[in-house]
């Protein structure tokens, strides 16, 4: 019994310690002064983190939009409200699915790659040797990646939303025969730019920061062995996905849960 309590206490302390380390890590790396060189490093990471994730986001966005239209149509047509399809597709995409699904895909595609990359640098002593040369790895390695993730995810989310709405149009209008004009006009009547689109953007900014933060921290903090890298990569995907889903609930409650 005592043993169990002791173990619980130690685990709690470990978790609190890790959160503290992660927080310090974020603060130290995010406030790095931008320089000319830093800008090129950032561009490079934008390529690896953002541009390389476009393909998966495009494909998933189209399919999610198509499925939404198909499912939505079968439900709405029962109430004779099938012209509200555009509204349903756009609202669910812009508010929820685009930020969340894009963040989950991002965690799987870019997050795991970031963890593995930084972990490998740590395991091959690149981080230590950089420090010995007199360059802060937080500044040179971590900061450009953090900023790239923070900027990339909202862009990916927008792309996801746009192709999703297009996919919904493809199925709803071109295939199932919803009138094109009511698809768009219903959408325009119900979607509000600030309440829906910008709130979705705020979500994806938060997700971008959190997912990249978890990914680079897991890479920086891992045990530098091959087993450690594979474990940290898994942890990145699991923690980042849970964080995205949990935060999504909190943010949704704050933004749309105006029950007053």
């Amino acid at each position: 019994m005592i043993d169990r309590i002791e173990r619980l206490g130690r685990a709690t302390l470990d978790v609190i310690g890790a959160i503290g380390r992660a927080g310090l890590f974020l603060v130290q790396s995010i406030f790095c002064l931008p320089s000319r060189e830093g800008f090129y490093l950032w561009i490079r990471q934008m390529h690896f983190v953002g541009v390389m994730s476009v393909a998966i986001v495009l494909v998933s966005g189209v399919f999610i939009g198509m499925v939404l239209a198909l499912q939505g149509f079968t439900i709405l047509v029962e109430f004779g409200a099938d012209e509200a399809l555009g509204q349903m597709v756009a609202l669910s995409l812009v508010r929820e699915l685009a930020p969340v699904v894009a963040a989950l895909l991002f965690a799987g595609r870019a997050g795991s790659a970031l963890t593995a990359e930084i972990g490998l640098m740590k395991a091959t002593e690149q981080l230590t040797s950089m420090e010995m040369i007199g360059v802060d790895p937080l500044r040179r390695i971590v900061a450009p990646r953090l900023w790239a993730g923070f900027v990339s995810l909202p862009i990916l989310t927008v792309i996801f939303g746009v192709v999703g709405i297009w996919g919904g149009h493809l199925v709803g209008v071109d295939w199932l025969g919803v009138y094109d004009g009511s698809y768009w006009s219903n959408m325009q009547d119900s979607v509000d730019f600030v309440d829906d689109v910008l709130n979705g953007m705020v979500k994806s900014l938060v997700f971008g920061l959190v997912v990249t933060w978890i990914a680079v921290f897991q890479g920086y903090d891992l045990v530098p062995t091959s087993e450690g890298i594979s474990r940290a990569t898994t942890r990145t995907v699991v923690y980042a996905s849970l964080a995205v889903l949990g935060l999504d609930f909190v943010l949704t409650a704050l933004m749309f849960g105006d029950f007053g």
Partner: protein
Amino acid sequence: MKRNRFLELGVGLFMLAGILGLVFLGLRVSGLGVGVPNDTFTVTANFANIGGLRQNAKVTMSGVRVGKVTSIQLDPKWFDAKVTMEIDADYDGKLSDDTAAAILTSGLLGEQYIGLTPGGSPDMLHDGSVIHDTQQALVLEELIQQFVSNMAK
């Protein structure tokens, strides 16, 4: 650090796609107007019951969209709903002041909107005018109740 044109181009396109996408979401999806803000005029109407009418609902005349609802408030004087709507400036001075406003439903359970019916008065509606002839929303429960009590007679 060597620069890589190809890489920069890719990132540039990526960010451009993001901005264009946001513009698309703004204009096409949320229907934000790009025109000058004063190309509409505002009228208000009081309804006994607005049912499920929401902000941004469309305002139509003969089924054609002419404007949208901008705000819905409770009028503390009469305890009815004061609905403010923006009508396209094209119709400023062309709708008579006895125009009727009704809250209609698209489909059986669809979205609610306002339908305007023109009147015959020589005086016209202007910015800030009030529509007096209003018809409240049909509430399904009330209809059913009416139907049931009629049956009982």
